């Protein structure tokens, strides 16, 4: 890679760090681990994204915002390609992303438990308590397995009584 190309991809990463997720606007697409690669080609930049959920309605908006940001930074032409494998994991959210989620009032995901042969648990299943993002109490309960977007569930703190969202570990 030439020096100019390296500088260009670096600038692209910097521009992408400013592209906020439309559904969790506290985090950038880089914080979320959606941007997998920025590749310099002869005919322009290729931004490789991995979508979070199959049905995530934000995917199209994100693609457009990414291209707009590259244009605004004067780094075009560019194109976005989708890479499905390996599937996106909440483990890809950066440490900084986790902090931003917490500040925004969303409990960040814990580590994804051993992927693969996790049996369904019906008997005696205990949800690990998600700490309240507001007061830090571990005395919380899950209200709903599904939340306002595909990536979140809904919880309530039993101490400060505030409801809050939790980014699901997947």
């Amino acid at each position, binding site marked *: 890679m030439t020096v100019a190309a390296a500088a260009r991809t670096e600038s692209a990463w910097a521009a992408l760090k400013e592209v906020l997720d439309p559904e969790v606007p506290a985090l950038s697409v880089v914080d979320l681990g959606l941007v997998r690669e920025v590749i310099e080609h002869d005919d322009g930049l290729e931004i490789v994204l991995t979508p979070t959920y199959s049905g995530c309605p934000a995917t199209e908006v994100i693609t457009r915002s990414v291209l707009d940001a590259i244009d605004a930074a004067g780094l075009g032409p560019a194109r976005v390609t989708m890479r499905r494998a390996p599937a996106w994991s909440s483990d890809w959210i950066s440490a900084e992303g986790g902090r931003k989620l917490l500040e925004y009032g969303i409990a960040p995901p814990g580590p994804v438990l051993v992927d693969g042969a996790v049996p369904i648990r019906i008997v005696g299943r205990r949800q690990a308590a998600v700490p309240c993002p507001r007061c830090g109490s571990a005395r919380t309960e899950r209200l709903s*397995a599904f939340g306002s977007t595909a990536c979140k569930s809904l919880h309530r703190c039993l101490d400060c009584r505030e409801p809050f969202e939790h980014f699901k570990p997947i």
Partner: protein
Amino acid sequence: MSSSIKIPATPELHYLLRLSDTCLILGQRLGEWCGHAPILEEDIALSNMALDLIGQSRALLTLAGQRSGEGYDEDQLAFLRDEIDYRNPTLAELPRGDFAFTVLRNVILSTWLKLMWERLHDSSDAELAAIAGKALKEARYHQQHAADWAVRLGDGTDESRRRCEAALATLWLYTPELFEDDAVDAAATAAGLGPAWSQLREPWLAEISEILGEATLAIPGEAAFRSSGKRGLHSEHMGYLLVEMQYLQRSYPGGAW
């Protein structure tokens, strides 16, 4: 554009369509609950699951369009086929019924889909394997949610139990179709595309037995009836579903927003 498209009769394409249409049609049925579920949390849950299913179906239909050699896109395949060219098993298209019916159908189909995605993750088709890797995570979550509700309702009040038993008696009639093989399965296994559907039967029954056991619901006996949606011969409910689903693209060809 609003006239129907025809699907080449290749077994590999039919294998993909059987799966894409299961997701599409079940997603359409779950979407019908939006604004009608018994509690707000479930309204959100069913709409969320519908979104996942439709997202999975979009990926599969795009792939099927590429493999068809006809250049069809996901929208054409979703909205412009005639009934006989939809290949979902009949179970997916049955009317949504009451909440117990929807929960138990989700138990049956999310377990089946989870096992299917696990196996398709090793498909010789890299794109299909990638779609499966993503969908598997979602199907696991759906299955856990459906199982939780099955236990709550089956081992619940007299009324919830009565409704579960009635739902299961109907749903069970349509389950043999999920495990019967034909030339499509033979071609898919030969090509390494994915498992023959019969291979899912044993692990499916083991997981279903565990869930229904905990829900204190008995597994119904096997009936002689066989449904045939995956060969394009659907129940009387399918036409009504398609009329609603296809209306916009048929009336406003190529409409986008």
